[in-house]
């Protein structure tokens, strides 16, 4: 008997909040609508015979948005309905973006891991054609490391000094011009950087294709990135440190070298590594200036060289199953290389973050 009393007590109270607040949909309503529209979308897709799952997804997403709007307008009113529709549109945006990106990551890992092994990493393509299995990316790894290494050696000092100029010395017109053109330079398409080196180094000065020519183009792409990130980091160094050092009679250049740069070194390293990651994946300038090769060429100053991104492109263009396998394998190596650089760079940024910043 007592059970029924216990059951009734809350039941009689239930209508009271309903009269005070708007009627609300139950919490599980969006989930239920999502499941229903996904099922319906799949059903319609099957019935109409669409091959592409993307279409199923689109139909389901559309159904979800429309049904949410209709149900919420009926129950909660139009303002709440607009709020809910915005929520579902934002979620749909997120899902829409995740699908291709997840597919990209999954396909690269799945296809690439089929071929990626010690043999693939330690052999070149010498003597192989598009119809032969086997071969590897050793020559491309050498090429990429050398080209990116040379570009880094040139770009980092220039980038660092430019950033120091902008932050520590730069006043007036020249500094403004440099700031503006560094921004503009960030947006130069990589193929234009390649064309520039082509028009000077190759066409005007008459030099042949080489890894070094590619490095020069990569340098142009890398410098503005280094300048921007270093500039941001130097601005974070507190002025008190500079003033303290100057007050002790230390010359300005020694202050910059011994106080300012060491304080910001973590952030600068991060910026440089992100820049390296960016240029390591550039294909277009390498395509124009280094031309690619099947053979191991350890000399970046003489003759054509291979490079990892270019290898992916050229194996893709050969268009046979074996070359596609090799392209995916090299793409996986490239992605791993870039991602490791990114992760390490961010770890350094977190570990060496200037605690005394603003």
């Amino acid at each position, binding site marked *: 008997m007592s059970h029924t009393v216990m059951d009734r007590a809350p039941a009689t109270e239930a209508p009271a909040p309903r009269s005070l607040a708007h009627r609300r949909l139950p919490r599980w309503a969006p989930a239920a609508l999502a499941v229903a529209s996904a099922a319906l979308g799949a059903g319609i897709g099957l019935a109409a015979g669409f091959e*592409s799952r*993307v*279409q199923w997804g689109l139909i389901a997403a559309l159904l979800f948005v429309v049904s949410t709007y209709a149900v919420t307008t009926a129950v909660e009113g139009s*303002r709440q309905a*607009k*709020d809910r529709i*915005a*929520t579902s*549109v*934002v979620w749909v*945006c*997120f899902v*829409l*973006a995740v699908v*291709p*990106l997840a*597919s*990209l990551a999954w396909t*690269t890992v799945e296809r690439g891991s089929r071929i990626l092994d010690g043999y693939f990493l330690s052999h070149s393509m010498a003597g192989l054609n598009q119809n032969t299995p086997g071969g590897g990316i050793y020559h491309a790894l050498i090429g990429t490391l050398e080209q990116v290494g040379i570009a880094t050696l040139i770009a980092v000092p*220039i980038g660092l000094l*430019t950033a*120091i100029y902008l932050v520590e*010395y*730069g006043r007036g017109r*020249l*500094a403004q*011009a440099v700031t503006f*053109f560094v*921004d*503009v*330079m960030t*947006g*130069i*398409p*990589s*193929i*234009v950087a390649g*064309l*520039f080196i082509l*028009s000077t180094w190759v*066409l005007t000065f008459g030099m042949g294709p080489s890894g070094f020519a590619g490095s020069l183009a990569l340098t*142009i792409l890398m410098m*503005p990135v280094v300048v921007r990130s270093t500039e941001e980091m130097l601005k974070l160094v507190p002025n008190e440190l500079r003033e303290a050092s*100057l007050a002790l009679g230390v*010359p*300005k*250049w020694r202050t910059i070298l011994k106080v300012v740069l060491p304080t910001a070194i973590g952030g600068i390293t991060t910026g440089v590594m992100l820049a390296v*990651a960016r240029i*390591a*994946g550039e*294909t*277009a300038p390498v395509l*124009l200036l280094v031309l690619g090769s099947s053979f191991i060429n350890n000399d970046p100053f003489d003759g054509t060289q291979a490079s990892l*991104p270019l290898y*992916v*492109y050229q194996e*893709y263009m050969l268009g046979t199953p074996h070359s596609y396998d090799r392209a995916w394998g090299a*793409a996986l190596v*490239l992605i791993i290389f870039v991602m490791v650089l*990114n992760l390490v760079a961010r770890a350094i940024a977190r570990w060496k973050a200037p605690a005394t910043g603003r």
Partner: protein
Amino acid sequence: MNPPTSTAPPPAPLPPQPAAKGGATRPGDRIFVGLSRGSGVLLLVIMAAIAVFLTYRAYIAISDNQANFLTAFEWNPQGQPPQFGIAILAYGTVVSSIIAMAIAVPIAVGIALFVSHYAPRRMASPLAYVIDLLAAVPSIVYGLWGALVLVPYLDGMNSWLDQYLGWTYIFEKTSSGPARNLFTVGILLAVMILPVITNVTREVFLQVPRAHEEAALALGATRWEVIRMSVLPFGRSGIISASMLGLGRALGETMAVATVLSPSFLFSGHLLDPGGGTFAQNIAAKFNEANEYGRDALIASGLVLFVMTLIVNGAARMIIARRKEYSGANA
């Protein structure tokens, strides 16, 4: 800054002054100033050299061109007489970028809102991190994925569009074949510039003053009304400049277009027909068969691309610069 109340007359500050002045002329300082200013000047010289050399080589090419460089529908710089024009390339570049922007900008704003306002707190910062990483994926990998995964996928969608939207002319498919067309290129470019636009937009959204949002909430606004009344107006210029940075990237993208598109110099208003080309793609595709004059012709088309991206990026930077309080735009 200094309190005007003077205490005891300090004799100490006087001697250091000449020393400090003398410091500016110390040889170490002079060398260091010279080096750092020299690097800054070097950057300016490189920019100037890019413009000068591209223009010079382009001038060589265009002065021998027998066709109108801006309007000709062909690319035959090694023919007799040499004839080439950029009409098809300009059309392809602009159309594929417009498609990419039309798809990417709304979705990127949506994702930025998702990360800044909708996602559960614990998910938000890992998500931002993942988006950062995606912006670092090399374009050739996007190209490989686009050509081998996306193109077969979009075949079905193309025939669907042709069937139901074919009457709009632009979605009419007049020749069969795989979906290696400008529409696919636009979708792939959208996927590529999505992380770029999202990153910048998200940073702006996070800078919206909390007081604006809380004021709207206190008036009883729903979450969407808060976003419409305080977040979007505050972030509008950020969205615009982020989109233009993305546009700059889409215009100059080479490898993703070169792998996906099957190029041709026949004009077609039908987006789903294979063919067309973009500046960057044409350079990559025609480079290997080009002699020196052919390369000059390609450089001429590259100059047009250079000017286009300069304008777009310059405009984006000016919009950012007008908002001094928004300083996170180092993308």
